[in-house]
């Protein structure tokens, strides 16, 4: 009876069998990478906005404090997107004819809100509170990055749970003195860990067990 298969089939079958193992491993790897890719997290993506607002200009060049616009960052969970009124405080005097600012003036004229696209968006089941983070020495920069270097706003960090936990598990690595909360490009005066541990006591920062309890962020 004639051979059905050529000798090489042996080799092929071996390759297939061992290949299968590596292929599965590869798939898992791809999955984990995709999960963290900027496609999934939307990191570093500039989003379409009604007005090309430049933090680089307002924060970097003009040095306006974050809290001038994001008024409720110290009092509320929500850092407040400024009402059109706030923009008009200045832009009723300067750049009054600039065409890029027309949407703002229009909004102020006919009382219709500007429709911004959310850049930093957490899932609805995550209850993040700005005020407590600011009060405990987590700088704006720590999560939002160097907005003073962002002509157009984008998301600096992954904002995934492991990223949050990374800080909740070792706060000392990230917190800074309150006076530098809104500072961009803050450099710790000395060893961060050491300063961090001092601040942990000073700001009475909760223990890891509590900071990593589910109900701290999920309800």
């Amino acid at each position, binding site marked *: *009876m004639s051979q*059905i*298969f050529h000798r090489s*089939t*042996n080799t092929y*079958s071996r390759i297939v069998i061992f290949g299968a193992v590596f292929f599965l491993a590869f798939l*898992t790897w791809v*999955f*984990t990478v995709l*999960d*963290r890719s900027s496609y999934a997290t939307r990191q570093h993506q500039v989003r379409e906005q009604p007005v090309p607002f430049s933090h680089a200009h307002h924060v970097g060049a003009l040095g306006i404090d974050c809290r001038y616009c994001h008024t409720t960052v110290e009092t509320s969970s929500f850092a407040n997107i400024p009402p059109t009124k706030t923009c008009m405080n200045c832009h009723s005097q300067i750049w009054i004819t600039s065409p890029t600012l027309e949407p703002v003036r229009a909004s102020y004229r006919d009382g219709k809100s500007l429709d911004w696209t959310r850049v930093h968006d957490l899932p609805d089941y995550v209850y993040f509170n700005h005020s407590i983070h600011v009060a405990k020495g987590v700088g704006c920069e720590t999560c939002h990055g160097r907005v003073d270097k962002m002509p157009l706003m984008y998301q600096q960090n*992954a904002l*995934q*749970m*492991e990223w949050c*936990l*990374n800080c909740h598990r070792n706060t000392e690595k990230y917190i800074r003195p309150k006076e530098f909360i809104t500072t961009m490009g803050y450099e710790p005066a000395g060893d961060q860990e050491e300063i961090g541990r001092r601040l942990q006591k000073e700001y009475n920062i909760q223990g890891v067990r509590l900071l990593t309890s589910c109900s701290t962020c999920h309800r």
Partner: protein
Amino acid sequence: MAEELQDPHVASKKIIAPGYTFGTVTDQIATVVLTKRTPVFWFGGFAAGLVLLFLFLLAVGLLFAKGVGIWGLRTPVMWGFAITNFVWWIGIGHAGTLISAILLLLNQRWRNSINRFAEAMTLFAVACAGMFPLLHLGRPWLFYWLFPYPNTMGVQPNFRSPLVWDVFAVSTYATVSLLFWFVGLMPDLATLRDRTHNRFARFTYGILAMGWRGSAKHWSIYETASLLLAGIATPLVLSVHTVVSFDFTIAIVPGWHSTFFPPYFVAGAIYSGFAMVLALAIPLRSVYGLEGLITDRHLENSAKVMLATGLIVGYSYMMEFFNGWYTSNVYEHAAIWNRMFGPYKTAYWFLITCNIVAPQLLWFKQIRQKPALLFMSSIVVLIGMWLERYVIIVSSLAQDYLPSSWGIFRATKWDWFTYVGTIGLFLFLFFLFIRLLPMISIFEVRTLLPQAKVEEEGGN
């Protein structure tokens, strides 16, 4: 069975009918697969399986569309048919592994002519069982959260939960069974490859046979492999259902929280498993005229195993009752009492009849030798064992600690569709198997022939 232990020779003579030669054995088994003419019986069974399978797909489609609410589940009975079916199917699987692994190690050579389809049965039963843990989830699309993998949440499964143990137990079980079955198939696949005239069939069997040529080297590797696999599979027979029983014993529900569940469940598993073996073997051999290969001897041995395990199960029921009374714990008392005289008393007494009373007939040789009766008793046991799991799960949950939150489970038609649906899936797969693969291990049966003995002796 005892005397075979001492003298396989005597056994081998009785195990299969006289007058078989290597050739006839091979012919008879191989033609079932290679013949062009498929028996009507096959079409009947396959069609039945297919219909039920579609029912299953309908039920599952609706389940995913609407949620587990379509079942009769409620507070406090949050587990119903799904888990019952899971335990039932897993249990059935055990017979196959026991036959192929343990009996192999014990050198029970009579197993050779029933191990193949018993293993297949195991495989398909595990397939059916494996679906339920997924189906019963509220959000099935998130099932993969039960596996430990590097995720972006920085959270891992709770390794203290029996359900996570299940994941490992069942997946291991499925893998090993599959390997064992496939390795055992190889020589026969080669036989089919060589005997078929259909080019496509030859190619497929050829691929699956993985170049088996029956050389001495192959055989020695084969022997080692199957022994190793048997070694790995043997503890599984005990471990898998032990782990499954942990789902209940770890919980504090009165009627679940009990230390003797593991042996109790394992015995029950083998009990139902052998019942299923008989329920499959008896029709098969009569339809395909395999009485010569699957002899009354096999049926009788299986019946004996059933009787033995059945007695263990019966003992467990008594212990359950005894413990309930002996703990002098008000909740346990109530649980047992409610089980026997509460809303589920019918199911309870029915299962007692099925699992304890009926099998007692197997004491009698005359009955053990009547295939028809054996077939019926095995069906009775299968029903009884399903009811057992149903009663344990549902009646315990329905009435636990606070009377205020007691509630009665009422199955909806979708519960039933899902259940019989999986039976459909099982039949579907099984009929495919008997049509496409040798349902009896050709070469292993050949070793049972007297000629084989002669050769061996000549060989030595």
